[in-house]
């Protein structure tokens, strides 16, 4: 089981801030494909991959990063701190 976390408008579109999933995905990108296949809400949330950032165990990663052994994968839009 992996803990998924969502932030900002991605959280609003998905409709939850976190959930636990079983996944066969090897990478973040494959995990996104699994999520998009679930329903229209997820498909819409992840429709523009250029606007999606991801973190594996709280480290920012590229979408082709592996998720083997990860406890937590987070998805969010580009950050706007400062």
């Amino acid at each position: 089981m992996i803990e998924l976390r969502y932030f900002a408008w991605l959280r609003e579109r998905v409709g939850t801030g976190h959930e636990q999933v079983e996944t066969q995905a090897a990478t973040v990108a494959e995990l996104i494909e699994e999520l998009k296949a679930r329903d229209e809400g997820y498909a819409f949330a992840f429709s523009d991959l250029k606007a999606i950032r991801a973190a594996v165990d709280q480290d920012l990663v590229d979408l082709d990063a592996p998720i083997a052994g990860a406890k937590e994968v987070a998805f969010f839009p580009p950050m706007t701190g400062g």
Partner: protein
Amino acid sequence: MPEIIVQSDPFDMGEMLNRFAARQANAGAVVSFSGIVRDVATGDLDAMEIEHYPGMTEKALAKIAGEAMTRWQLADAFILHRHGRMGQGETIMMVATASRHRADAFAAAEFLMDYLKSRAPFWKKEITGEGAAWVAARDEDEDALARWQQQ
């Protein structure tokens, strides 16, 4: 060790600057940057709301500060970033750097800001008379980052 603070409470930027400067035994140059909630173009900002990723936030800020400490001759660095709801004129965040060399203090503070803007997990939402809207990331913030990677 750089000090990192993530909090929802308001803070006093002058007090923080004094506190930071007071612990610099032998660094003659202190630079600070403070970000303040400003109005939107339409002039009807009610508040700003900042969401963050507890846990990752502290980790990302510590990493950025550590990187600044190795890139420049810094005596110390400080980052404070708020989350939650804040009104116009309130201070959102602050960074400070101390060095024997003013060029290092300036460069490191600007580096911290450029990284904070687009690599620390904060998301701003503007609440106006029209409703609430997430602030879009800006291309120029990515461009600002790129110059540090070339070095």
